[in-house]
């Protein structure tokens, strides 16, 4: 099985994981899963639609947090392969959206998109949230870049 191994600095990442874990639990509990659905959708289908999204988000969150297992705490490595790549991508996106809505609301869309936030204007909590926001983006960028290879396609 083809895989991408990412080596991380444990001392830098471990505090971010403490911040990310409650957000992953939020996803499993369905918090932050709020899709815009057609007004005419009947209540049963509406409930089923949302339930599917919550289940999917929960599984994705478990997969993401599962990357940071004993191996990571031994040598700082995480492994992305064909079986976990999609979930890691989706969960990273979901965590970033939660970080934005829960901790980074005072920053404009333009500032956030440019990645040029002024750390001097941030509280300690916002700095940690932004660190997680960037960390999740980096994971996504690496996985997207190598996705064809991970899944055995010629790029």
């Amino acid at each position: 099985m083809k895989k991408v191994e990412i080596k991380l600095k444990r001392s830098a990442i471990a505090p971010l994981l403490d911040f990310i874990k409650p957000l992953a639990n939020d996803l499993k509990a369905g918090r932050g899963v709020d899709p815009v659905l057609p007004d005419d959708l009947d209540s049963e289908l509406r409930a089923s639609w949302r339930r599917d999204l919550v289940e999917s988000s929960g599984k994705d969150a478990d997969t993401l947090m599962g990357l940071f297992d004993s191996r990571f705490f031994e040598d700082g490595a995480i492994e992305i392969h064909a079986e976990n790549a999609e979930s890691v991508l989706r969960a990273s996106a979901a965590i970033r959206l939660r970080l934005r809505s829960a901790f980074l609301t005072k920053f404009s869309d333009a500032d956030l998109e440019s990645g040029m936030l002024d750390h001097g204007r941030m509280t300690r909590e916002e700095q940690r949230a932004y660190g997680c926001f960037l960390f999740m983006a980096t994971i996504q960028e690496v996985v997207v870049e190598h996705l064809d290879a991970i899944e055995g396609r010629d790029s």
Partner: protein
Amino acid sequence: MTMEETRTSIEEETDARVRPEGGWKVVVHNDPVNLMSYVEMVFRRVFGYSLEKARRHMLEVHEKGRSILWMGEREVAEGYAHALQRWQLTTTLEKDEEG
């Protein structure tokens, strides 16, 4: 390709799809969080679009705030919208009033 050519191209594709089918639009809206490379990858995965077509739609989302990714029957549109929401993209279904 210039942005103007890109817009024209997308509009032409949209028109070609909507006239025979009518029905429902799957619309993806811009957000300041999801990465452009990620959005492009999702469009390729969900719709099987080429890299070029996925990129055109991604840029339309980024520049204009929204892009119509697909048009057609309600049931199929719901499937696409659900898939895009699983990928954490802000997606709505809209009735095509001209269809």
